[in-house]
């Protein structure tokens, strides 16, 4: 099916309904079976990212001009803050607070937008941030900073470069940043260990840990690379290669039910699912599912259903479809 917006991010309300966000801040609800599409709400802050609270009641939206919170059932605006670039909206596992980036700072609010934590300014605009348990990891030019459990005091791990994305392992052991200089920087949380993976042909804009923290996948090349973080981590190990994407992975999504399954999409609309159980270090992996492309527009988001048996692909031209993976 097709919608009349150009989605840049998406999240699942349930296995039948998807919320789509475009760069202007329009948020649409799509019913996959009936193919009904409704405009849920419009974020006046524009659109970069959306995230649904774990109880699926509150929708958090980050945009070029700030962030906003909406009720997910009727799209009522609960709170918004304007005035600075925001590119992150991430809910804490408890569902009672959400982390936003806001210009050079981060802001944690409750579900109604009431501020709980507001950091001081970092060295530049915060490009990504993530929860590590109750701590917060922040990426801004010049390094990664990790807070205490109150989210108030930050300790910086320096790296001279422009950081674009950040992922913290669910185990809390590792933080990884993808960078403008086409590298991955890996920071061990417990000590000063830092590893660097260089040589990608393009900047790294996506780096994502899987659900048990033993794999990390990133873009930066035509192939997606997957690093093993099992045991002592990736040092001395070669990545598993997910080959033959074009223009780099534009969407990387780990299954929420099987730690070894990953779905990837690229800039010409190709969509694949891979099983890492079959992967060998340093070797290209053969895809478990290689779907016929329904659109040659970039895949912007891939959503797994709650059972792990299907994925929903969201293309930038508004084409959306579900594919069985099992």
């Amino acid at each position, binding site marked *: 099916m097709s919608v009349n917006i150009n989605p840049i991010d998406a999240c699942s309300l349930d296995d039948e309904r998807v919320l789509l966000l*475009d*760069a202007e801040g329009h948020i649409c609800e799509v019913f996959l079976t009936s193919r009904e599409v409704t405009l849920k709400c419009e974020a006046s802050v524009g659109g970069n990212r959306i995230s649904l609270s774990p109880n699926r009641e509150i929708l958090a939206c980050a945009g*070029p001009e700030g962030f906003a919170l909406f009720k997910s059932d009727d799209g009522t605006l609960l709170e918004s803050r304007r005035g600075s*670039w925001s590119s992150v909206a991430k809910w804490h596992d408890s569902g009672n607070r959400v982390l936003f980036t806001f210009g050079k700072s981060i802001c944690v609010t409750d579900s109604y937008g009431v501020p709980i934590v507001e950091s001081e300014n970092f060295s530049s*605009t915060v490009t990504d941030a993530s929860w590590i348990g109750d701590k917060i990891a922040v990426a801004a030019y010049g390094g990664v900073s990790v807070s205490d459990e109150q989210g108030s005091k930050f300790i910086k791990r320096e790296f001279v470069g*422009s950081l674009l994305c950040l992922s913290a392992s669910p185990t809390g052991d590792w933080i990884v940043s993808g960078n*403008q*200089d086409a590298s991955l920087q890996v920071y061990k949380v417990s000590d000063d260990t830092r590893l660097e993976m260089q040589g990608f042909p393009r900047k790294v804009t996506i780096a994502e840990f899987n659900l048990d923290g033993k794999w990390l996948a990133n873009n930066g090349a035509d192939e997606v690379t997957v690093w093993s973080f099992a045991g002592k981590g990736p040092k001395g190990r070669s990545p598993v290669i997910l080959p033959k994407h074009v223009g780099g992975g534009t969407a990387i999504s780990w299954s929420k039910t099987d730690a070894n399954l990953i779905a990837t999409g690229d800039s010409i609309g190709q969509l694949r699912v891979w099983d890492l159980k079959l992967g060998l270090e340093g070797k290209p992996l053969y895809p478990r599912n290689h779907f016929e492309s329904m659109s040659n527009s970039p895949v912007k988001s891939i959503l797994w259903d709650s059972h792990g048996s299907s994925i929903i692909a969201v293309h930038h031209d508004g084409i959306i479809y579900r594919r069985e993976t099992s």
Partner: protein
Amino acid sequence: MNDSRIPVTVLTGFLGSGKTTLLNRILNENHGMRIAVIENEFGEVGIDDALVMAADEEIFEMNNGCICCTVRGDLIRILGNLLQRKDKFDRILIETTGMADPAPVAQTFFVDDELKESCRLDAIITMVDAKHALQHLTEIKEKNFENEAVEQVAFADRIVLNKVDIATPKEQSEVVAEIKKINSAAPIFTAENANVDLKELLDIGAFDLQKVLDNDPAFLIDTDHVHDSSISSVGIELTGNLDIEKLNKWLGKLLGEKGTDIFRSKGILSIDGNEERYCFHAVHMLFSGEFTSAWGKSERINKMVFIGRNLNRKELTDGFKKCIVSSKTSKTLAGKK
């Protein structure tokens, strides 16, 4: 071949030179184009049909081995969002602050893969106040402090000498002479209230190698240059065919060692054994070059211009001459020089 990428014009100029006036003129002109404007502060321009986004000039050093390579992180973010919008734009204008160094803006379009694929840097336009610019251009800064006004002129592909109505002919000629000392390659257009013909400023293709070729005569303008520490331009025009390996080695070494001081360089070159013109341009150390149209029956003349600080004409000319192959070993067909 049509280039479907969105053209980006960078508008620089010292405080009070008329950048916002020109921006408003461009937006108000009846051209039917959808224009997105990235400016320093909201509210300076206000046009219903234009999308205005504020930038905060975050300049990042790159960790890519190029010591003078910087990018504008804010532009990468803002353009990344703009390019994904349903309402497509025909053109993007980036207004810089009066004190801005244009290099990070230009380098952003060399360095960032996504921007390279979606946008093409069309030109850097520098506004100059005909009445007051001379004092800025000739101001001696303390050691380690840049003269931003001079750098903005040095980087320009086009210069608009604005407010000529309030400047005397003597003031105008003095400022033009000073501009030409700094950047002899950029055409100068005079204007009152920024009323320059927009055809001279938009779709110039100053970073388009084919159009560099069309604008070839600009390279011929040269001025007497005395080697000193000021910013100036050196034009080189030589017949003969170049050894591509020697040329790459020389340019690589030159830009590697002196890229911090060489702001812009452009060239149309005759490569030995090749029928096409080789066009290149560089911003500091970042270099882009390709073979373009065939020489055909036209005379094969190498033309290069360097704009920067501490330029040594003799050294540059000698280095360039060493890349020319002798007529005895040339693979280029006789009769085509």
